[in-house]
């Protein structure tokens, strides 16, 4: 079970940086197909997540595997747990 704080902060990133409406922010949403992000947005997503969570993920290979919003929740949660 992912910490609610992680979910809320991640959703904030999508609202602030990508102007996604809150009702679209569901874990099963594919960030490319459903939320409309592209490769340039991923660069900015990484920067925003780093700032929001105080982590360093720019060179983390696992970023490439992210497809859904839920994947991001899990990824950040794993970083925080470790």
């Amino acid at each position, binding site marked *: 079970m992912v910490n609610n704080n992680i979910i809320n902060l991640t959703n904030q990133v999508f609202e602030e940086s*990508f*102007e996604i409406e809150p009702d679209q922010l569901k874990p099963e949403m594919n960030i490319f197909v459903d939320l*409309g992000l*592209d490769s*340039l*947005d991923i*660069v*900015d997503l990484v*920067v*925003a997540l*780093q*700032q929001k969570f105080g982590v*360093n993920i*720019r060179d983390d290979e696992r970023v490439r595997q992210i497809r859904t919003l839920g994947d991001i929740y899990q990824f950040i949660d794993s970083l925080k747990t470790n």
Partner: protein
Amino acid sequence: MINRVVISGLGAVSPLGHDVPSFIKGIRAGKSAVRQMAGWDKYIGLRSRVGAASVLTDEKKIPRKSRRSMSRMSIFAVQAAQEALADAGLDTVICSTGRAACIIGSTMGGAESLNETFEIMLPDKDLSRLTAMKFFQCVSHTAAMNVAQYLGLTGYVMATSAACASSLQAIGTGYDLIRLGRQDIALCGGAEELHPTVTGSFDVLFATSINYNDAPQSTPRPFDEKRDGLVCGDGSGIVVLEEYEHAKKRGAKIYGEIIGYHTCGNGSHVSQSNRRSMQACLTKALADAGISPGDIDYINAHATATLHGDKEEAEAIREIFGESVPLSSLKGYIGHTLGASGALELIASISMMEEGLIYPTLNLETVSPECQGIFHVKKPLKKDIRILVKNCFAFGGINAVLVLKKY
């Protein structure tokens, strides 16, 4: 074969309003857009604290994926370009034919974005916090590139960067491209962003107005004995240039025909204006148009209210035109919009041509002795303008002059 080139559309985001009608309405009403700038007092050494800012409006109408790469001035340019295209009665489909150009100049990339980039990166020499979009907002062709992308434009895309001559060079370049038959249509103009660091760069050179921080609407004062320097402004001006037969065939409204243009360097000094090279530019533009000084009905001066620049321009004009041709500067209304100034002021000059009325130089009360001997317009003057001249004389020693004929 050399084609004829006309202006068939106008678009403006100006410190006096967010479209051409509000811009012109403000000038007609004699309004100054110059204000004291909040927060500028925190910059150590910045003595000029006045500016003429355009207001960012309706930017969210531009979809995020297009807007994300736009600096503030790119948004201004997109909005002005949209107005110009609509005014010309052209659908954006024309942009994808490869026969439409986009030439938009500015002094530099988006000033706010450049400063944000430095503020993010420099304190810790850390690039990891830079977003992907900063590059596209900071580059010198941010306005041209973003307008072209937004409109799906596939013809020539160019950015003329020549400080205060940028947008007149853009229009001159579009004129040449259409003259030579390389393009049928060209969206041309300029854009600029007001920022304390932009004003600061002129302040360092002792070129800004510093004595009117508490009376902002009294400055700048082109040609006036109490002038003390320029006031920066921002916005964007875009005109649609069109090959004459192309415009005629589709029944377009034609504002005027460009009949002459010249640009040249002064070859002498980066910041000191030089009347000889101004004269050379004016003379060659008139020669390009095949007309003589006596054919000109109005001169829209560059006149930014710097001590030296206004004097040199007045002397250059005096030597060629004497006191015979009425002239005014529009900097008192909207400040110096730098890369946008040539296009914005040409648009206002076209309005004067349509109306048969010369808008006077705002804040010109007593003509400085060194700026006398030319025909200053100090109050609205009714005049049939058949041919006008637009001057731009930029830092870097770059001159540009355009000659426009009533259609």
